[in-house]
Structure formats: C-alpha cells, structure tokens
C-alpha cells in the first residue's frame, strides 16, 4: 500500500469513528504538478486526498482559521516537518491546543516520499530534533553565498530592487502560519504605524516589520516565498533572521510545544550585546 493509500485509509477510519471532524490535506490541482489544500469532512471523500512529492504547501495555517478549533473537536492535517514545527510554535504561543491536532506526517528526501510515524506533535520530537542537528538550511545556496559576499551597500541595493517590486498584496502574510494576528499592525491606523502605500518606504517598512515579527518563529516552510506573486526571495530574509537568532540565543524555532518564544522571553544567560 502506498503512503497515500495508507493515509486515505487512516483518514477514513478517523472520520468514520468521529475521532476527527475534518482532515486538511492535499488534492489535485489545476495542472499536473499542482496540489491544492482540501478539507475533507466525510469518510466518503477520502479518495480525493493526494500525497506525493508535489505536496509542498504548509497547511498548518488553516488550523488557526477563526472558529475551527473552538468546538474542541480534533482536526487532522497533512504536515511536513516544517509544518509540525509550526504546530509546536502555535501551541507554544497559545494559538491552539496541540492535543486537538492529529498529524499525518510526511517528508520528501531525494524525491522519495516517506511517512513520519506519530499522531501528536510530541511524537515527532526525533524528526524535529534532527533538523536542529542537521539544519537543511536555505535551499538556494548560490543566492545565499551571493548575498553573504555583498557589502552592506550592495545588500541594501539588492533589497531595494527586490522590495521595489512589492505590491502589498500581503500574500506572504496570509500564507504564513505564524501571521495569525486578527489585526495586523499594518491594518491599524490609530496610530498609523506603517504606511499602507506600496512605495519604497512603505514596502521597506512592511517587509522589515514582517522579518522582525518572524525572527525566532519562522520554520522556513517557504509558503511566503511561493505565495509572493512578484518573486521577492522572502525566505532569504527569514533564513538570515533564523541564523542570527541561532547565533545570539542558541534557538531553533518549533522544537517543542513548550519551547518559550525566544524574543518574548528572558534568560539570565542571554547575550546582552543589545542592551546598553
């Protein structure tokens, strides 16, 4: 039995027995290699679930949709390791109760799909732990090296050109499981913290505010990067912040559901280079 079939069978069982009220997974998309999020509530529909190496979107953000978990019923969701880390962060930040989440874990290595054993988030500790030991890091090594070699001025010019393309569609925010705020800071106008216009100042403000808000929280799932309709390499910024946070606080985001949010907690041995 393929992993897809195994997971379909498990979904059917969970839905029939009422153990979960919904399975959030992947279905066929518009074109051959596109997969789209689907929401299965009836055991009769599990045949629509697809699982292969084209299943890339991190689906964890749907779990914090308004009202979904408020009835305390369980919801199942297909997740890669990044998505599982996202569940840990959402639980640590009190956005969901991890016990309500049933995980259909999977990963793709060298184009090979494999199932991850476990149901609840804590059972994936080993898989997640290995990320810490063996951080796969940023996929586009070439771009990363190019950026690292730049002078500060060159880097500024690079980002200036990239941010100039931003149209403030907020696809990055909407696609991000960590951007769950009911009212984003850019949508507050008393006071108007961030210019809403997508001119160069407004675009810098937005993208930098988002990078800071994701520091120590980003699981590098790449949802923002893929969602961006103007191809800004957003993941690169978040990766850079993750590297900084690792260096400064020895913190990798999403390791457990009790892990304290790094920039919202204080430890006595925190490096104090930024405190005067």
């Amino acid at each position, binding site marked *: 039995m393929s992993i897809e079939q195994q997971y379909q069978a498990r979904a059917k069982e969970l839905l029939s027995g009422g153990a979960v009220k919904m399975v959030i997974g992947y279905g066929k*998309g*518009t*074109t051959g290699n*596109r*997969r*789209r*999020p*689907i*929401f299965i509530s009836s055991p009769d529909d599990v045949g629509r679930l697809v699982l292969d190496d084209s299943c890339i*979107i991190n689906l964890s*953000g*749907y779990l914090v949709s308004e009202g979904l978990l408020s009835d305390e019923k369980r919801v199942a969701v297909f997740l890669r390791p990044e998505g599982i880390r996202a569940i840990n962060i959402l639980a640590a930040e009190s956005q969901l109760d991890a016990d309500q989440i049933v995980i259909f874990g999977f990963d793709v290595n060298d184009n090979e799909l494999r199932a991850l054993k476990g149901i609840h988030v804590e059972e994936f500790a080993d898989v997640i732990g290995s990320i810490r030991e063996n951080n796969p890091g940023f996929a586009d090594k070439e771009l990363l090296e190019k950026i690292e070699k730049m002078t500060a001025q060159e880097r500024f010019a690079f980002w200036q*050109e*990239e941010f*100039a*393309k931003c*149209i*403030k*569609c*907020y*696809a990055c*925010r*909407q*696609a991000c499981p960590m951007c769950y705020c009911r009212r984003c800071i850019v*949508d507050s106008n008393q006071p108007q913290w961030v*210019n*809403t*216009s*997508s*001119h160069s100042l*407004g675009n810098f403000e937005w993208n930098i505010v988002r990078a800071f808000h994701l520091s120590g929280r980003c699981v590098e799932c790449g*949802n923002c990067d*893929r*969602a961006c*309709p*103007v*191809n800004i*390499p957003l993941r690169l910024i978040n990766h850079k912040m993750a590297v900084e946070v690792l260096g400064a606080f020895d913190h990798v985001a999403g390791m457990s559901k009790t892990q304290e949010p790094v920039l919202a907690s204080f430890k006595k041995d925190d490096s104090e280079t930024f405190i005067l």
Partner: protein
Amino acid sequence: MTKILLIDKLDNCVERWKAAGITVIGPVHRANISVYAAVEHASEFDFGLVLPDRSIKELFFPQTEPMLRYAIKKDTIDTIECMPPSGPRIIFGSRACDASGMAIDDPLFGWDYKDTYWFQRRNESVIVTIACIKADDFCMCTSLNMEPDSTKGSDVLLRPLENGKGWLVEELTDRGQEAFTQIAEFLQESADAPAQTAVVEKKFDLEASVAWLQKPENFDSRFWKEISMRCIGCASCTYLCPTCHCFDIQDEGDTYSGVRRKNWDSCSFALFTMHTSGHNPRSTQSARWRQRIMHKFNYFPGKFSVNSCSGCGRCSRQCPVDMGITETLQEISKLSL
C-alpha cells in the same frame, strides 16, 4: 501584399519614437519578474513570454500614486494636484487580454465622474498588441468570448509572421496609425504569411455561469463557502488582474503638509468594507470571493455591458492555493447544468 515590421528594424523604430519624445514600453524582465516597462533598446524586449507576470494595468493605474499635495497654512489650505508625468507613450507588445482589460475599465473610470489620473494616461498611450501564438494552461480568453488576436483596447495589432522574422501590421485606430506613420520607412510590403494564433481551449460555459450568478437565490448558495474554503484572503489575484480597479485613498504627512495617495485595494481584504462600528457587510472570506465573482460577471456587466474579466488567467496562475476565476466558473458551469 501587406505591411510588415521586421524584428531587425524594431530598434530603429524604438530610436525614432524616442527621438520624437515618446516613451517606449514593452514586456521585459526586471529583477526576476516580467513586467511592462520602459526600454532604451529593442533588445530588452522579451516577446517569447506568454504574457508578463504583471499586467498592463499599472501603466494606467499604478499601485500607489500621489493625487494631491496639501499645505495647511494659518488661514487657508492649499491643495496642489499631482498629475501623472505627462508625455506620449507607446506600449509595444501588449497582449490582447491586457489591452482589452483597459478598455473594460474605461467606462468605470468615466461614468458621470471622470478620473483624470486614469484618462490622462489612457489619452497619452498607444497600445500595440501582438497576437499570441502560444498559450499556457491558465490562458482563458476564449472562455470570455475573446481571442488571442482580439483588437479591443488596442491601437495596432501585430500578427507574428510564420517565419518568426517580424509581424504583420494592422493599424486599428487613428492614434495607432499616427504612431506607425512615424516609423513608416522601417515598414515594408511583404507576402509573408502570419503564424497560426494560439489555440486556447474553452474552459467554462460563460453564458451558463452568468445565468446562474444572476439568479438571486444563488447568492446564498453553499457553493460559495465550499469553493472559497482554502482562500487565504491575500490580494494576489486582484492586484495582478488587469481589470480589478478597487482602490484606497490614504493620506501621508503631518498637520502641515503631506500627500493624499490613491493605492490599490482589494475586495479580498476583511478591512475593505469594515465599518468603523465593527459591522462588516462582507465579514467572511466566502462573502468576499462571492463579491469578486459577482462583481466581474454579474454587477459590472449589469452596469457597463461587459464582463470585468479579459481572460488573462493571472489569478489562477499566481494563486498560492490554486484558486481562481477559471475553477470557480468551471464549477458554476457544472452547477447550472
């Protein structure tokens, strides 16, 4: 024998137009994305694109533009109008869907109250469209009863030659003719045949879909919730759409001076219709997606006798969760059987 323009001569044309003070714009690559932008040389153009990632809309209705500057003084307030940079432009190498998109929005920006920002740019632009000889999985102009060589909104239509060396020239409007008169010496007579235009498969039944949308009871159909469940509520589809025209008006400045700007806005956003009281007429994502589809295929045609969609397919092509107009109308076509 018909008039043709050879690709080899295009640089001469660009030079000639530029010498006449005309800004020449076309499909180019800029910072890892394809857009319509001003060029210095013809070599910058990429006519091989199915269509640029970003639509032609921003040339007429930019993502943000200053409308007014204000200066508050003791006994008066000065308002200075900021008009768009003036001057003639030739948009060379538009696609039929993009060009028609601008014509679709003309009546909206002009009913009773004319939007000077839009019309100044419309008035100063010549759109030279190149008929498509290839399409991708998301192109859907034929589903909107248009074709890859539709002329709506274009001033000149170019048909690629079969030999790939240039285009057959069809001047459609006086201003198109005027623009091509300036480069007459680079045109020539030829019997070369035009290439076959792209075959764009019909993806949905527009008439059936529209009939379904017009039935009042379908406003409350469960369909809206089901189709939009995965919508994440970003504005990618609306901002890339050539015909989506919604905007916000925002002030930037202080108590003494500043700018009032017109910025793109989107019906996908919850804040778009939120009253100060907190009441929101379109409080759910399904209500917002319904609004977008209804607006394009029911309300807009009701006002202006034309669908607010030109079939470019950018909404589906770029959607982070694989949604879009095509899929929605395909599903509606099925419902209306």
